[in-house]
């Protein structure tokens, strides 16, 4: 099956080459970081996690978001999602791969990463995160592969895969819950110490994951002659809109608790992120966008005339995706470190090297995604004889 990824038209080759070039640049930057140390990043003893861990957190959400397709299809037999379920699973695979790469990129001693397995420590949330992420990766590769192989052979998927499919659904919830627990259980980090961290993570995941899936489907429709079907896309749009709405609601809850209780520690980070604290306002424009973009996006997706039209609907999804990326892929992780436990404010500016590695990991994720989608669509074409250009 893998041979399908080796052939393609010129657009496909250009895209693959483009990704490989970025990956190459990132690899060189990683070698630099590996030999010098994490000092090549903008992180410091006060802001000890940066864009790597922030991307990881956001992408766990994208991975978990795939379940919004799998659940209706497998549990409720919602046939409309039949064509895109495999795409959701493969999106999860590539997202989890990115997550793992970001963690490795963030380790001070990556060669010792297996210490997590050699000295299992159940009281550490990172230990559990390692288990749920790798488990989810395994489940999605297995399910995706078995289902795709059966589709190719034009037989029903074997019965033994069913338990794995059912397991993958709560497992998707678990990856983002455990990732939220990384933050929500730390004393002295007021911004993260919130019981709705996991629910909020899930709400943003169920919006950002399917939103990316819709965007990818629109790209495939344009360049690969693959149509997910109007009904499927419209259903996904509904899911995105309401999940995004719930996420914004949760954000309002955070503001209420902090500002009505008037507890300084709870207000500090929100102040820093959204309004600026003692003149430190480097993240304010980004965080304002992280609210404005999704609000416009949600409004677009909830307006019937704009939702029906593919172009406006896609823009709505992009706004929500970008907004939530700003919120979780920047604000959430960096905000937790400001102010630090001694209430000092330290600015964090990612370096060129760090950004190059970050972009390269994204490129690697899209590379994996492209290859997997090429296989899935290849099988689809083989059966239905549609003219797939890519």
């Amino acid at each position, binding site marked *: 099956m893998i041979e399908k990824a080796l052939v393609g038209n010129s657009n496909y080759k250009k895209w693959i080459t483009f990704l490989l070039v970025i990956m190459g640049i990132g690899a060189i930057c990683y070698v630099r970081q590996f030999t*010098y*140390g*994490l*000092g090549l*990043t*903008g*992180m*410091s*003893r*006060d802001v*000890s*996690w940066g864009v790597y861990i922030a991307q990881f957190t956001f992408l766990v959400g994208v991975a978990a978001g795939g379940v919004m397709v799998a659940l209706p299809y497998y549990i409720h037999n919602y046939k409309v999602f039949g064509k895109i379920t495999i795409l959701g699973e493969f999106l999860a695979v590539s997202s989890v791969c990115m997550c793992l790469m970001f*963690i490795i990129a*963030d*380790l*001070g*001693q*990556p060669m*010792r*990463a297996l*210490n*997590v397995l*050699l*000295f299992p*420590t159940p*009281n*550490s*949330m*990172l*230990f559990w995160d*390692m288990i749920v992420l790798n488990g989810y990766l395994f489940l999605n590769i297995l399910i995706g592969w078995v289902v795709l192989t059966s589709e190719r052979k034009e037989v029903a998927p074997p019965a033994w895969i069913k338990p794995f499919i059912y397991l993958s659904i709560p497992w998707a919830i678990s990856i983002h819950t455990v990732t939220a627990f*990384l*933050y929500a259980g*730390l*004393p*002295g*980090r007021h911004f993260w110490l919130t019981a709705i961290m996991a629910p909020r993570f899930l709400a943003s995941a169920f919006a950002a994951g399917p939103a990316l899936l819709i965007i990818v489907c629109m790209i495939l429709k344009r360049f690969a002659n693959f149509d997910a079907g109007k009904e499927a896309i419209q259903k996904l749009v509904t899911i995105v809109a309401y999940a995004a709405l719930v996420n914004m609601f949760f954000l309002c809850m955070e503001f209420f608790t902090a500002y009505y209780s008037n507890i300084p*520690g709870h207000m500090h980070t929100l102040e820093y992120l959204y309004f600026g604290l003692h003149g430190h306002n480097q993240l304010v424009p980004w965080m304002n966008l992280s609210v404005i973009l999704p609000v416009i996006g949600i409004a677009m997706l909830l307006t019937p005339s704009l939702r029906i039209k593919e172009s406006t609907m896609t823009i709505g999804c992009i706004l929500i995706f970008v907004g939530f990326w700003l919120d979780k892929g920047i604000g959430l992780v960096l905000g*937790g*470190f400001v102010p*630090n*436990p*001694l*209430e*000092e404010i*330290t600015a964090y500016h990612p370096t060129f090297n760090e950004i190059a590695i970050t972009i390269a990991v994204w490129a690697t994720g899209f590379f994996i995604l492209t290859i997997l989608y090429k296989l899935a669509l290849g099988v689809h074409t083989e059966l239905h004889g549609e003219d797939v250009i890519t």
Partner: protein
Amino acid sequence: MDMKRRKFLKIAGLSTIAGIGAPAAFERLLNGEVPTISHASSQSESHSESEKPTGKRYGMLINLKTFREHQGMAEKCVKACHTVHNVPDFQNPKDEIKWIWETPYENAFTSKSHYYKNEEVHNNDALVLCNHCDNPPCVRACPTKATFRRDDGIVAMDYHRCIGCRFCMAACPFGARSFNWRNPRGKDEKSGRYFIDRATYNKEFPTRMRGVVEKCNFCVERLAKGLQPACVEATGHTKALIFGDLNDTNSEIRRTLSSNFTIQRKPEAGTLPSIFYIL
């Protein structure tokens, strides 16, 4: 017939359980054998109060009054510690590593009221270091047990096991941990200055490598030789720092604690620090 009987038995059984259980539950709620008034303090769950302490638990009392009387002594403590432990000096805040340092009162005691300040207390710095918590969040967070709590209460590090994930740094409510962002054994490319001063390099204590976390170890290597921690030694006979076993009622630290009003940093975090302060 059978089915009916079975059903009857089921219902009867369930009712019996409910009949026995419900009054008991209501009684507990209404009359209550539980005392109506009790207290929940941030200290009440401590090992030290609920269990009879066994073995040692090292702690330190920092007398800020004495430090105010001996201006410049705190710097000596910092210097002593950082020299003994080969703590590198990168001379920039981004790569900074510190085990013990001076910080303004408001930064050390973030939750204490700052209204109508006592100028003397507020205008002087406080020494801060790892609190060697009885219930350390960093140990809870570490995925490899590279940081661990010893039986004598010291929260220690295994630099060879640390993977550099920095979860402990996020978990510590006191900002006591530092990371080796670059090779501490190296030197500045421009000036050729070694980050660990060659003149004062201590061969007795290992240097660390790039990519691991480090922090105050309560001079565990000196305690093993029967010495006091380096910072305590640097205060001479001033008693500005008193180090000892918190579980020993006759120890100097316990006697001083019981005869003075002392405070701790962030007791509300429930980590049960082993460092006490006299203001």
